[in-house]
């Protein structure tokens, strides 16, 4: 008997009890929909966490003075990269340098502790969210810039505004307090409130002049092609560094982010397996019933000379059709559910809680092909294996006994 006849038989058998098939089909559809939908939401959340995290002055790879991470003070600076290092850094899609030291800002009314960033305004554009996030005023000019950029929340806390002056206090390498009055030329808005309160930005050259550190910087940051695989790139750059300089990737700089990303893949797989197991009880049950009510029929077929192997395949085909139908519907529905949401779901109700995780007030689900494939593979492979038992039972029926069942 050929495959097409076999599958035709299986297909028709499926619809002999259409009500049962529909119920099982709905269950598979809902299960698959939930697998893919939920995964897309979670992926979207984690993607956003990673993106926000890396955009917030972490990048992919950073180079510091070996003591800087322990003690982020001005004394632990490194010289601006020399020609050899620059040549190597130019192999990265983007890189920049920053002065990054603790400081205190005073407005007329309030004071706050902040992180003072001396940035190369042009290069910075490719590495962080800053340039695209100015909500009032302007971004730092490339040359002769003496203004400061501050966050919206910080401006509120300091009770100051665009165009007003603030005083920045920090330390020079000899531990003398230096202070300078600067005008606010721009206000930026970040996804996270904490970022807005933490960072203020000055032109790098101007910062170095104020702090009395000619050509010294706190960090070099690069962005690479693929943020997941940085080992090779790290080794290459490392060979160009001096003794007391240390190179680290984002996994080291932001351990929570790295842990979350790692947990995600495990979580997706477990979630899919759990849904599948819950489904499989119903699937096996449906097949057992389908086999049971056709005992006579199978007996008849066997006694007419049909090979047990073909009976087995017939039942497996039935299960396969059911699974494929459910998968198509489930995947399609998930796609339909997620497509309109790709422009973002408003989750501002829980925004502050999500902010703690590094996620903004809008969630962008991310439908990934590999997740769809995983869900489909799990359901097909495990589903057919689960159907093996009832199918095997059907093929091992004794013709005479089976025909006498009423």
């Amino acid at each position, binding site marked *: 008997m050929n495959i097409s006849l076999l599958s035709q038989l299986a297909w028709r058998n499926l619809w002999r*009890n259409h*009500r*049962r098939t529909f*119920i*099982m089909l*709905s*269950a598979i559809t*809902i*299960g698959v929909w*939930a697998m893919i939908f*939920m995964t897309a939401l*979670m992926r979207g959340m984690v993607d956003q966490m990673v993106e926000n995290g890396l955009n917030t002055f972490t990048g992919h790879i950073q180079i510091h003075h070996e003591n800087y991470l*322990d*003690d*982020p*003070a001005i004394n632990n600076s490194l010289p601006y990269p020399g020609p050899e290092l620059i040549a190597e850094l130019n192999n990265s899609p983007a890189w920049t340098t920053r002065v990054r030291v*603790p400081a*205190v800002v005073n407005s007329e*009314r*309030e*004071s*706050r*502790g*902040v992180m003072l960033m001396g940035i190369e305004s042009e290069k910075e554009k490719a590495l962080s969210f800053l340039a695209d996030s100015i909500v009032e005023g302007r971004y730092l000019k490339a040359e002769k810039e003496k203004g400061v950029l501050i966050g919206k929340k910080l401006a509120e806390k300091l*009770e100051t505004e665009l165009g007003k002056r603030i005083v920045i*206090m*920090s*330390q020079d390498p000899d*531990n003398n*307090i230096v202070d300078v009055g600067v005008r606010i030329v721009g206000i930026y808005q970040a996804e996270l409130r904490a970022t807005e309160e933490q960072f203020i930005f000055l032109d790098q050259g101007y910062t170095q002049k104020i702090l009395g550190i000619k050509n010294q910087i706190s960090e070099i940051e690069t962005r690479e092609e693929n943020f997941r695989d940085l080992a090779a790139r790290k080794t290459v750059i490392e060979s160009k560094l001096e003794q007391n300089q240390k190179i680290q990737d984002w996994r080291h700089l932001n351990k*929570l982010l*790295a*842990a*979350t990303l*790692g*947990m995600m893949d*495990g979580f997706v797989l477990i*979630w899919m397996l*759990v*849904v599948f*197991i*819950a*489904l499989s*009880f*119903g699937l*096996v*049950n*449906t097949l*057992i*019933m389908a086999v*049971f*009510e056709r005992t006579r029929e199978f007996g008849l077929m066997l006694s007419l000379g049909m090979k047990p192997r073909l009976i087995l395949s017939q039942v497996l085909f039935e299960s396969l059709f059911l699974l494929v139908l459910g998968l198509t519907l489930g995947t399609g529905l998930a796609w339909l559910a997620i497509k309109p949401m790709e422009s973002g779901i408003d989750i501002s*109700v*829980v*925004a*502050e*809680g*999500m902010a*703690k*995780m590094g996620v903004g007030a809008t969630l962008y689900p991310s439908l990934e092909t590999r997740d769809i494939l995983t869900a489909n593979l799990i359901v097909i492979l495990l589903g057919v294996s689960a159907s093996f038992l009832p199918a095997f039972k059907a093929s091992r029926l004794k013709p005479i006994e089976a025909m006498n069942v009423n």
Partner: protein
Amino acid sequence: MPISLRLAWRNLWRHKRRTWLTTGAMVFSNVLLVFLITWQYAMYGMMVDNSLRMLTGHFQIQHPAYFDKPRIENSFQLSKSTLEALENQDGIDVLVRRSEAFVLASSRERSYGIQIIGVEANKEASISSLPGLLKDGRYLQANEEQIEIVLGSRLAKNLKIKLGDELTLFGSAKDGSTAAAIATLVGTLETGVQEVDRNLAFIHLEDFDAIFAMEGEIHRVVALTPSVDSVDTLLTKIPELGEDVVVRDWNKLLPELKQSIQSDMASSWFMYSVLIILVAFSVLNTQLMSVLERTKEYGIMMALGLNTLRLASLVLLEALLMALLGLLLGIGLGLIVVAILGQTGVSFPGMEEMAAEFNIPSRMYLEIDLRSAMAGPLLVFSASILAAIYPVLRLRRLRIVQAMRAP
């Protein structure tokens, strides 16, 4: 045993495998739900508890404007008698006063802008976990001649000062004048929470009062109650304290805490509902099959005088028995799983980093909590019964003569 119960029970076991598979779906989901919900609520409880025990307390009394603008002049005064009356009120364990200001702290080598908190040293330990997290030295002690200060360990390290070293504090006082003082480091705290370790410093409230010219005014009264759940009812019983103060509970003080729980809860319950719906479908299918395949039998029973109502209750009873079986087995096995995990503890890769962020231990020892253990299985139970309604409704379409002729 009434006849219908016996009938229902026997009907269930006419198809042993089918019944076990359907029950199996329930048991699987129930065990999973018991474990997950117990874990989830244990984690929330710990998150809330540990976060509130850090500094916030269960509720605070503040100047009305202080929450939005934590400026030094937004302070208030409560008379001693008011405070004592409050502290003796039922349901309040302990009250402490605090004041806060932003200062520039300079050691010989370094300067940092920090948050300095004036505390009642002898009472602080009964409300906050921080005094217990000493890394070096000791906590503030009363009646000393010099101004004592305790710093976050990271801050002390960044300032490059050791126990016994002096630190200059520089800020502005309540009246707008310059506030300056020299304090001696007596201890450092290590919490694992970056904001605390890098940013905070504690001095005696009396010293704070003198340095910042507070004239007896303070910024917060922090209160601890026996449990988070009792805060709401307690707040309704607090007498009017005057126009220049407000009472804020922990939800208002730390909105992100409740919200991160809510967002986690929303995604968890989405997943739980999917599980429950899948089980319901499984039950629906089983019940529908068992009704359809017995059409002939039902026809005969009705011909013998059984009315539709009895028949319906029989089918519902079958569903009920099966759901009950799933419920009991599920809760039983679920509790065993929780009990075992209570001994060994649960941890997963990445939990350590999560733990530091959300103030929870990196290995959780679950405790059996019947309320959270019951929630999931009860929902599965109700969903299973609901699923049996459609098959029951189909009974109404039964026509005796045709039914008896069914194959």
